[in-house]
Structures are given as C-alpha cells and as structure tokens.
C-alpha cells in the first residue's frame, strides 16, 4: 500500500524546469530520505506534495485520493504535516501555544486534550521544560525541535521534514536520529536532508534528485555504492 505517490509531477518557473516529470512512490510506514545537491529541486518537489505551490503538470495522490487541486490546509487536514526548512515558528508566542495551534483543529475545543497532546509532543522532542518560554527566546537548536514537535503532535500519516538537522549540534543530531527511529512504524516520514550521515543512519530508502529529475533510488547501501550519485555530489563526471 502506497501512502503517497506522484505521477509525472513538474514545476516550471518561467523557462526553468525546477522539477521535471517526477513519478515517485512512498509505501506506508517507510522512512524515505530525499537527497540531492543544492538546487536539485527537493524543496520545490515537497512544496508541491504539501500544496505550498501548485504543480505545473502531473498529479499527487495521497492516501488513495488525487489531491493535486486541493489547497494546502486540506492536505494537512487529510494527514500530512510539514516542517519548514527555514525555521518558521511563532516567535512572540509561548512554546506551548506554538504546538497547541498545530493540534487545535483536531481537538476542537477540548483544551484538556490539547494540553495533553502538546505535553506529549514536547516530551517527545525533549523540550518539556521550555513550555512557558517565548518561542523566539529558544536557542536555534531548540527552535528546530519545536518545529518538529509542531508536526509530530498532529499525529500525521505522513511527516515531511525539510532539512530538520540543519544547524544542529552533534548531540542534537543524535537525539534527532533516535526520535526518527522511535517514530518508525508510527508514521510515514519523508526526510529532506543534506547530512548524509543522518540519511544513512535513519532512512529505509533514499531517492536522489539532480537537476529536477530522479537520479537514483534504492536502499542506503545501494545509493552509497551508486557511481552516478557520487558523480553528482562530487562533480567528477
């Protein structure tokens, strides 16, 4: 059973094709990593999955339904959660309120349930003790974790993480990898990531994008040994 698939998905910006005819499938429960050099089209691609930007051509299917024409908020409500590459939190609101906003449309007026869900999510990423602080006062690493907590607490079917470890310290990266392995089996995860070490340690399968196209796809081991991938990354071709 596939949770998410795309069919010939493309996006053009003027004359430039950022994403070129990608057909892509994530089976339910998988931790999938999406890697590729800068400008490969990773963020454009996931923005089309989540509905942040419209596709020029092609279709997106989520949970068996064609969502290509659906606005972003309905895709989120259908069970996608999206965390931003550039930390995008509510700096002037409390950490608690940041996460609460993410779940309130699910708990519909039940503030006790909201509180419970928020506390669970904060505990899961390990920032429970910061709940009453203003989110803007958190360190960068903690803001990244808050961003993830906002996605987690929605209990999505698909969690899209755009460069979650960017700017994190080594200890925080290890904590993040543990978090991902805890979530394995609970939700399907699509991880856009620069840090190859994180990808190799946490992903079940890897898709490599280059110039808007799928360059290679396979298990971490296969990708590691793939000559074309090495060429794209190292620029030796």
């Amino acid at each position, binding site marked *: 059973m596939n949770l998410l698939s795309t069919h010939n998905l493309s996006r053009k910006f003027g004359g430039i094709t950022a994403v070129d005819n990608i057909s892509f499938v994530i089976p339910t429960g998988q931790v999938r990593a999406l890697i590729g050099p800068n400008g490969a089209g990773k963020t454009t691609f996931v923005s089309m999955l*989540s509905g*942040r930007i419209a596709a020029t051509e092609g279709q997106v299917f989520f949970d068996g339904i064609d969502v290509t024409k659906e*606005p*972003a*908020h309905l895709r*989120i*409500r259908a069970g996608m959660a*999206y965390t*931003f590459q550039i930390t*995008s*939190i*509510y*700096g*002037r*609101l409390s950490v608690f*309120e940041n996460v*609460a*906003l*993410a779940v*309130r*449309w699910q708990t*519909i*007026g039940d503030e006790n349930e909201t509180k419970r869900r928020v506390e669970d999510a904060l505990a899961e990423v390990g920032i429970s003790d910061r709940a009453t602080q203003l989110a803007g006062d958190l360190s960068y690493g903690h803001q990244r974790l808050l961003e993830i907590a*906002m996605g987690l607490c*929605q209990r999505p079917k698909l969690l899209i993480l755009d460069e979650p470890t960017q700017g994190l310290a080594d200890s925080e990266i290890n904590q993040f990898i543990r978090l991902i392995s805890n979530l394995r089996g609970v939700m399907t995860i699509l991880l856009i990531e620069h840090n190859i070490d994180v990808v190799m340690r946490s992903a079940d399968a890897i898709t490599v994008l280059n110039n808007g196209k799928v360059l290679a796809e396979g298990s971490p081991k296969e990708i590691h040994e793939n000559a074309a991938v090495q060429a794209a990354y190292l620029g030796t071709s």
Partner: protein
Amino acid sequence: MSELKKSWLLHLGIVALLFVLQFVLPSYHHASMARIMVLTCYAMGYNILFGYTGLLSLGHALFFAAGMYGLSLSMQHLEWLAGPALIIGLLSGVVVSLTIGLLLLRTTGVAFMIVTLMFSQAGYLTVLYFGEFTRGDEGLVIQQELRSIAGIDLSDPTSRYFAALLLMTICIIVSLRVVQAGFGRVLVAIRENNERTRMLGYDIQRHKLSAIVLSGTMSAAAGACYCLLFGYAGATFASVQYSIFPLLWVLLGGAGTVLGPFVGTLFMFYLIDLSSGLTTAYMLIAGFSLVMLTLFAPQGLVGEIRRRGLRWLP
C-alpha cells in the same frame, strides 16, 4: 486565580466603574464619556482586524458610515422606527464588509491598505453624490422624538450614557470571547506567521474574511449607535479622517489588547480636549504626545502594561 478569571474580572470591573461614573460625572464629562464609549466600539472593531489579525485597513470609515447611513436613511426616508433601523444599520455593516472582504482577500500587504482606502473613498464620494438623500456634508439630523427604542428616550443624557455603556459591554464581551476562543488564537497566528498557519491546516482566507466581517459589523454597530444617540449623520464620518482615527486610538491604547481601544480613545479625546483649552495649536500638543508615546511605548499604553508585567492581559 486563573488568568481567564482575572481578565473577566478586570474587564467587568471596568464596566462596573463606568456604570458608577454615570452618577458622579459632571454633565460635560458625562456627555463626553458617552461619546467615547461609542467610539471605543468602533476602535474595538478596528482592533479585531488590525490588532489581532494584523491586517491594516485605511478605510474603516466605510463600515462606520455603512452603519450610520443604514440607520439614518431608513429612518429618514422609509420612516422606520429606531429599533428596526438599528438592525438595518448592522446588516449594512455585514453586507458591506462581506462584499468588500471577498475582494480584499485577493490582496495582501500594501495593496490591502490601498484597496481599503480606495473603497472607503468611493463610499465617501457616494455619500456626497447622493446628496439629495444624504444631504452630504450638511448631514441628516434625526428628530429627537424619533430617537427612542421600547419607550426609552435615547436623547436623554442618562439613557444615552447607559445605551453607550451597554454597547461597549457587548463589544468587550465579544472581543474577550473571540480572543479566548480557538478562532481568535488562529487570528493571532495569522498575524504572527501567515504561511506557518496555513501549513498547520488552517483556512487562512476563511479566517481573514470572518475577521473582516466581524470587524466591519462592530464598526457599523458603533456608527449606527452614534447616529442614534447623537442624532446626526454626516459625510465627515465617511471621510478618510474617520478611517485614521481608529488606527490612532488602537495604536495609542495598544493594538491586540481588549482594553487598548478604550484607553486609546479616552486618552486621545481628552488630550485634544484639554490642549485645545490651552492653545489654538492644540494639534501640535497632540502630535507631540503621539510621537513621544510611539517612541517610548511603541506597543501602546495597555501593550506597555502587558509587557511590563501583566502578561495575562488579553
């Protein structure tokens, strides 16, 4: 005591204080206070959109005037009683804000400001154009004997004061409820980070439209009541000046605070009132005070109090 209880106590306490003031204020201040309370409702309506949702309108006079002319025209030309005319005033606010709101949703940022300004100028010119009915700048005077609802004469200072207090109490309760509810929190989230809120699963456009309609309707309610209580509707109230006033009141009092609009309106009213007693250059004093406040309390008076300790102020 929970923060929720504290904020209800504070706001209802202020209502109670205003109730008591009715019996002790000298007649000049008594009349001023009634006017301030009605204008506060206008500012509270403005605050829903500007303070909480973060949308800066430069054309709220359109909504104020929609209420004012909805009431006065139906009383003057259809010979309706004050009660039904008041409802027409409110409905005018709903219809105008819904229509304009649907168009406004297509704009953001500076374009939003410009479009609100243009619509309200169009409204102002419409009032002048139909001078035969509205009597333009000269305005309509509502006869004293018509200004009563359920046998209560609203031109009488005491009942006028209480009517204004009732309206303001309703607006305070509505504002508090909105701010405490999930809906209000989403409005704040939109103000703080529009894109993030969309990607958390909220329909931004629908929330913005609701905020515009709520804000426009509160402003129209203030416009209709102003006309009913003070017996006059004139084109000045549709002019750009009356679009800027609520912005100033809200900025001074504290955008995004329930009490800010009241404090701002009160402060500005008496600032102009007192300084005009001292000098003919009273706008200079008013302007200077505004500049000082913007420099030293950029979040407004109530916003500053909140920043300095009363974090729970809604």
